[in-house]
């Protein structure tokens, strides 16, 4: 169990104002870390910092072992632009291989095969030629997940992956992610509002507020004060 990611005394925020501080946690290979917290507590800022989209105010974020900074698969929240983008599923999944290309202008045969394998893994092979904007929300998320897996097979970072999905699709998505974590050994970091899913699937929980409120295994979290207080408020909240 090698450590892949280490955060030391990280504080995050926008010019002048600190959103969250004193973040200290590590992610090991094979972990399923769920980042929870209320709106505005700095969850998405943390994601951006981990991805290198936004610099941290202070502290260190280090990647070690088999993952380097640009080898995280990322499942972003969907933007409005993407909802009506004219692109086929295959084109989108393949674009996840972009970071393997470097300066090479076109995709190699292996990359195309990788994209095919990932589509097969996520059971969207039959959608290959379909247009992205005609798919259902759940199918779109699978496409984006396949793309994320093309860009990195060791670690994926999911930003609210079930936003806008109906309960059935959301459950399928969770099972899929859990499968990737357990069967394929992919390290998962997920931001979520859904406390029930967090405590059901995750191995570790990071609870952020104005500062780090809790980091540890799920079992510890359930018995901790923070966890119990938060669970009683949030639990069942999004489980319509």
């Amino acid at each position, binding site marked *: 169990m090698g450590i892949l990611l280490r955060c030391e005394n990280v504080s995050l925020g926008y010019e002048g104002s600190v959103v969250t501080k004193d973040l200290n946690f590590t992610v090991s290979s094979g972990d399923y870390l769920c980042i929870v917290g209320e709106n505005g507590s700095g969850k998405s800022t943390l994601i951006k910092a981990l*991805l*290198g*989209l936004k610099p941290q105010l202070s502290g260190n974020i280090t990647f070690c072992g088999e993952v380097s*900074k*640009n*080898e*995280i*698969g*990322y499942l*972003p929240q969907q*933007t409005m*632009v*993407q909802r009506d*983008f*004219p*692109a*086929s599923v*295959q*084109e*989108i999944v*393949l*674009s*996840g291989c*972009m*970071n393997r*290309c470097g300066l090479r*202008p*076109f*995709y190699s045969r292996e990359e195309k095969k990788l994209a095919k394998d990932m589509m097969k893994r996520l059971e969207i092979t039959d959608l290959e*030629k*379909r*247009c992205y904007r*005609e798919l259902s929300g759940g199918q779109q998320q699978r496409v984006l997940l396949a*793309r*994320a897996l093309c*860009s*990195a097979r060791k670690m994926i970072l999911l930003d609210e992956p079930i936003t806008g999905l109906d309960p059935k699709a959301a459950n399928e998505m969770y099972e899929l992610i859990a499968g990737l974590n357990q069967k394929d050994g992919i390290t998962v970091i997920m931001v979520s509002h859904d406390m029930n899913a967090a405590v059901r699937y995750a191995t570790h929980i990071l609870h952020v507020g104005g500062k780090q409120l809790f980091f540890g295994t799920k079992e510890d979290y359930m018995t901790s004060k923070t966890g119990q207080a938060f669970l009683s408020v949030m639990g069942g909240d999004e489980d319509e």
Partner: protein
Amino acid sequence: MSEVFDKLHMYFQLPSVRYAMIVGLLIALCSSLLGVTLVMKRFSFIGDGLSHVAFGAMAVATITGITNNMLIIMPVTIISAVLLLRTGQNTKIKGDAAVAMISVGALALGYMLMNIASQKGGRTSSNVSADVCSTLFGSTSILTLSPADVWICIVMSVIVVTVFLVFYNKIFAVTFDENFAKATGVRSDMYNLLIAVVIAVIIVIAMNFVGSLLISALIIFPALSAMRLFKSFRSVIICSVVISLICAGLGIIVSILAGTPVGSTIVTADITVFFIFSLLSFITKKGR
């Protein structure tokens, strides 16, 4: 019918008409390539903004009396393109406002400078409005192209098309999801810059042809029409290039035969295609 062909045959004997056709088709090809990217990035109006900047730069070039006004127009337009696409993300003045500001500002300044210049030169003011009109809506100068102009246009088009083909996959990735591209280590800033420069080059080439007010139509309409019917990025681009070439070819022929202005005839053809495609997409959706 044969009269028409005879007339066309006669016209195409003239080198100037052939030059116009070559240049027109090349411009149509280049301008349609990046249409989809601009529409999806919500930058449909950048064509407008930049062409007004180019108009302003042209006015400055006229005043200073530089013989080759490309020397001023090209760098100024490229710099504005870079600034506009950069400010799109996070600044105090948002993308659409910035485009509006720069385009109207450049237009006003350019028109004023042209007036001042003509007063000093002692020309009549009606001459200025004719000048301005032809810069805005495209001039008849398409029929007075020299072989050198044609060569410049050919070289520029080859560069634009090559850049587009080489960076096709990267342009797709950056257009579809900039954050993802950046997060996985694609240098999206660089490719945004590249897109901006290519657009500026296309606009400057196209300005002489359809005029600075109508360039946006040349860039946006083929892409929008293609997006009505086609489902993958590649097919949309191929289709918009085909549409653009056909409309430009038809537009030039009609404008020669009927004596209509070249730029607006081509845009009319583009609009017609857009409505046909919208109708087709409506029908296919109903039929399903």
